[in-house]
């Protein structure tokens, strides 16, 4: 809690300085998350930020909030367990494209269809940066890296299309170079009840010399500026979500409200978060006797 009891971005200030490269898109993402949390009036102790491994996954280290930097590819699973044990926490997952769509691809798929109330912010720079420049699941065909010297052959994962097909209830894309848009999008995602994906296009100034700030600036446009676009329409979302190249749509691409999140279906949570349980209540001889009688 801030010493003065006022919630502002200083409340979220960490004593540690990020080790990211100057100009890294992660700075914009960190600033946007802080600003969104402040605007949503969420205090550091009420939030739990789970990350994986990678440059962007170091983010919990640079914000004063509960955080857990887990292992590569698994933050969605860890976050799901935390949310199921304590649904009162605002659970955010922050991880990169390799973490979320590559090694963690299975968890991504199943989290979409599971729909826990978790906001997933993917720092998508289309490169493996912390390991110094290998191609990622979202790298474009032809992209040359140390592990694709002749250019990438595989088609990139389209997170919007995958999430849509897997049943995600909130799918957005934003851009690290547009802090206001990013903050707005994160706020909308956190306001959504259920799994919310925010795929953040993020230039890597060190290793991705193709998808640069200029490259994105020339291409992105916000679907919110298009009056004909209906984000509740899966057809619209599919059409724009699969658009990639000369024009890249950002904004809230799809949202389906009113779908109860996974944890609301869990009968064991009807009495509130697990963490508030009095464990000694189970030391009731009547309970054990009742369970044992099943076997007589």
């Amino acid at each position, binding site marked *: 809690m801030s010493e003065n009891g006022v919630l502002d971005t200083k409340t979220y200030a960490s004593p540690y300085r990020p080790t990211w490269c100057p100009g890294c898109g992660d700075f914009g993402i960190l600033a946007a998350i802080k600003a969104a949390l402040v605007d949503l009036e969420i205090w550091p102790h009420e939030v739990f930020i789970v990350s994986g491994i990678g440059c962007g996954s170091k983010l919990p280290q640079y914000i004063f909030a509960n955080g857990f930097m887990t292992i590569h590819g698994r933050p969605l699973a*860890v976050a799901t367990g935390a949310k199921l*044990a304590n649904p009162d926490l605002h659970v955010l997952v922050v991880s990169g494209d390799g973490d979320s769509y590559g090694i963690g691809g299975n968890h991504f798929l199943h989290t979409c269809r599971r729909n826990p109330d978790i906001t997933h912010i993917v720092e998508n720079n289309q490169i493996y940066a912390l390991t110094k420049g290998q191609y990622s699941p979202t790298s474009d065909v032809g992209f040359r890296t140390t592990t694709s010297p002749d250019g990438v052959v595989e088609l990139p994962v389209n997170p919007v299309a995958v999430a849509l097909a897997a049943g995600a209830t909130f799918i957005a894309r934003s851009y690290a170079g547009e802090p206001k848009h990013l903050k707005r999008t994160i706020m909308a995602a956190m306001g959504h009840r259920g799994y919310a994906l925010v795929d953040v296009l993020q230039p890597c100034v060190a290793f991705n010399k193709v998808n640069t700030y200029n490259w994105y600036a020339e291409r992105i446009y916000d679907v919110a500026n298009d009056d004909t676009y209906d984000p509740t329409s899966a057809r619209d979302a599919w059409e724009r979500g699969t658009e990639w190249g000369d024009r890249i749509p950002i904004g809230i691409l799809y949202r389906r409200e009113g779908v109860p999140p996974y944890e609301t279906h869990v009968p064991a949570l009807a009495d509130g978060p697990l963490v508030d*349980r009095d464990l000694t209540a189970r030391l009731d001889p009547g309970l*054990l006797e009742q369970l044992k009688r099943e076997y007589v």
Partner: protein
Amino acid sequence: MTRPAVPGETFTLSITIGGDAGQGVESSGALFTQALARGGWHVFGVPDYRSRIRGGHNFFQIRATRRPSLSHSDPVHLLLAFTRETIDVHRHNLAPGAGVIYDDGFRVNGEALRAAGLVPLPVPLTKIAEEHGSKLMLNTGAVAAASGVLAFPLEPLLGLLHDTFGRKGRRVAEANVAVARAAYRYATERYRGRLAYTLADPAGSVDPAVPADSEGGPFMVLTGNEAFCLGAVVGGCTFVAAYPMTPATPILEWMAAREKQLGIVTKHAEDEIAAICMAIGAGFVGARALVPTSGGGFSLMTEALGMAGMCEVPVVIANVQRGGPSTGLPTRTEQGDLLFVLHASQGEFPRIVLAPGTHEQCFEAGWRAFNLAEKYQCPVIVLSDQFLAASRRSLPLGALSLDGVHIDRGALLSAAELDRLDQPYLRYRLTETGISPRALPGHPRAVFTSTTDEHGEDGHITEEIDLRVPMMSKRMRKLQTALADMRGPDRYGPEDADVTLICWGSTVGPARESLSLLAAEGVRANVLHFTDLWPLPVDKAEEALRQAGRSVAVEQNATGQLARLLRMMTGFQVDGHVLKYDGRPFAPQQIAARVLEEVGARV
């Protein structure tokens, strides 16, 4: 601790039910064991099945005794054959004068059976089932016929049929009862008195020297998995995540069926990696989380295991071992994962490994594991195996009680304690015991981060020598601290034995049972049973090993993993091994025979 070898059992009657997968062999076995227990007999039932839904030979072996027993027993006195092939498969394991019940429609040469010293007992099982109920009730008739042949009263079975099938409607229950009555009548009229082996009266005077079990009935009949679940429930387990894998699946199913009643979040995850990660997430924020799995699933979990070690997150993993390597023998038993779980995951971090050997110990491990996980803020692995997990054993109700059960959450700070905190909270504070006061996310005074990278006291990443070394030492110190809670081996049988059988986990049952067989051969033997395997209480182990006779490691693996652990930690070298890795559990007779081979020349 020294205990009597076996509770003085002398009378044993073994029954095998065999047939094709899909014929209801295991359900018949479960029905019969429970009926026998209701009738006052102690039972031990072992299923033996293949990894397939239909076809292939399955069997269920039941042992009935007057006093509690610890394993199945060979040879078999009554065979209940649902297929003709069953008779051929089990013939080698039949006692002289054993009975063989089969459908009179099978083409079985009764004369040949008689000539082999067996008693053919054909019963029109199909006909009776169809006439009084439906063909589906053949199993009920078969169990009733077996009861008739053995002079075991019908009432316990009838009561059980009412209780079991009553939920499906009165008609189903009544039809089953009609089938049971008809089959029982048939068997009684034709065959009563034909077998030398009977189960007339559990308190009867076959051996007046052995007093009837003082505890008396009623008995529960439950599996090791079920006993473990009961222990986990009283131990405050609130979260279970798993991916189905034989033979651990029943734990997940048990919890899922009672999620509402008990308030335990039960999550069938997309894979084992997700399962353990969910449990770690739940454990991090304060749940008592359990992950049941088997070796293959545990292999997938190893990286996350290290995360729990590094970030000091309490989590309990039950590895119900099966035959390996790889897919191995999916439905069969083995103790092949001991050294694996001790070393799994990169680097060094504290973990605790418990290996219950009996159903009572499964119950105890169920609650104890959660206390140890929270007290030492580390992963706790419970090593069970298919034999222990799936065998059905009778126990007096009092055998699983709340005596000693308590909830110990270790250095968990309460909200009130955190309210009073006057300095910044340090999640990984350096302490003498290695245990840092633990807060859960959600309190304004204890906002903290954690990372799988090396970190300082506040959970921030570091690579500095002056932080790395103290943090590593702090974590590893917890193993030293935890030794206080680790139990030395239990000794069964005489203190001054000539031969000492050294074992761990489920092997203790048949090993203890083998002692009387060895004694009958003039070998004075005892058993040293290790349950708390890591951190190994070296002092206690050494003291017990010093008093050992000629030592034989009895293990269900190919390399003698406990013997290797003891050698590594104490320098103690066993004199011999009795190892078994065919996927089938040891019978006491097998242990006795092989121990005799092993030590024969010297005794």
